[in-house]
């Protein structure tokens, strides 16, 4: 197994700051905007972004956690059965501008399920997608992010490993893992 570092701790922080500035540019004071992190792994990134936005705007922005398990179209076709995570959206999304946040955009199926899952909570005015790592050339569906941390060329057999200190890792790091044949 070969591991290649894509983003180290410093670069990762700079990237988050840059994404936050891009969001402020488009959403200004975030009056009608809410953040939704995709379970399970997009949540850590969403929390970082929310924290940084709170500092920059000096207010508490709403952050919801969305689980897409029950909306997936492949839940009986996977080798490893998927286990549901909690959905916690303590605010109305009706007529709101929603920013969906996930760490890695790969086939696009999670985002498709997330759009479906989100509609069960109301009809948003606008939905945008923020992906920290956009894996190019691997999409199954026509889904593209509005905000990207970094674009990476990968092949299907490779895996992007995101380590967060919130999960017990020593440092925040993002790796590209290549399995040996």
């Amino acid at each position: 197994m070969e591991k290649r570092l894509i983003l180290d701790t410093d670069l990762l922080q700079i990237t988050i700051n840059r994404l936050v500035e891009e969001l402020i540019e488009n959403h200004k004071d975030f009056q009608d905007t809410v953040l939704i992190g995709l379970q399970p792994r997009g949540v850590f990134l969403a929390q970082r972004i929310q924290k940084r936005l709170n500092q920059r705007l000096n207010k508490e922005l709403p952050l919801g956690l969305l689980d897409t398990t029950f909306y997936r179209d492949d839940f009986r076709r996977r080798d490893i059965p998927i286990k549901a995570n909690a959905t916690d959206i303590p605010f109305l999304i009706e007529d709101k501008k929603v920013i969906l946040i996930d760490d890695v955009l790969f086939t696009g199926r999670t985002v498709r399920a997330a759009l479906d899952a989100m509609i069960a909570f109301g009809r948003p005015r606008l939905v945008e997608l923020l992906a920290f790592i956009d894996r190019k050339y691997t999409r199954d569906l026509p889904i593209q992010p509005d905000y990207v941390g970094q674009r990476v060329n990968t092949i299907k057999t490779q895996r992007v490993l995101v380590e967060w200190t919130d999960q017990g890792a020593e440092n925040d790091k993002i790796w590209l893992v290549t399995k040996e044949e």
Partner: protein
Amino acid sequence: MTNLSVNHLLGIKDLTEEDIQLIFQTADHFKEVINRPIKKVPSLRDITIANIFFENSTRTKLSFELAEKRLSADVVNFSSSNSSVKKGETLLDTVNNILSMKVDMVVMRHSSAGAAHFLSRHINANIVNAGDGTHEHPTQALLDTYSIREQVQDLKGKKVAIIGDILHSRVALSNIYALKKLGAEVMVCGPATLLPKYIGDLGVKISWDVKEALEWCDIANILRIQLERQQLKYFPSLREYSLYYGVNKKLLDSIGKEIIVMHPGPINRGVEISSDVADSKQSIILNQVENGVAIRMAVLYLLAQKRQN
């Protein structure tokens, strides 16, 4: 663990403790789903489920149907009273005919113990036992233990008394299996004529005195007298049963501690339980009904996950 160890839900006896915990965890998520503005998820939208009820049922049938519809499954309903069973068709023929219409899962209630087991050996759809005679009623036991867990967090070491007609009850047997697997202590209580002869072999305490049972337990699961299953007279009169085994407020007040009261329904008000107890704060009867939908969604979802494509 992310998958059940079984392909059918025939009884609690076949489940492991991990299976039960997995069903509970999944039900937690579905409980959140059924409290949303839009209570439906598309998980089972390519699955067809037949509800085959050879015996009357209100809440179990409704609860399963609601669970199936909230998972977006296609549902067909069958009840024996207006079917070809009346013309002498066998169980296997009836079900095979239904399966020929490309049904993936079968939820079945039958008056004969073992009917669901029999079916599971002959057809390749996933079977969910919705009650087979006086044998098992696994989803009821799951929703009962899930409802207790909601109140007490962990069932380990908790004392549960099952009071009433144990002999004719499928709920009692499934409950005993489920409670024991989750580490609770169980006592059964009722008139000697309504306690099965070898019930002690299941590792439960036995009492013929309802006051003793209530003093011992943290949770009382009160069962209905199943008059429709009784060919013989097991006790002199309903009035006398109510006098000796009925749970009322006066009796509960006299034991000096607050216990949780449950009942799988339908209730015979004034017989095994009085209205002031059934409708009291310590009663979780309506929570049981709500949890029934979440538990059945979890069971159907997890069984669908086991289906081979």
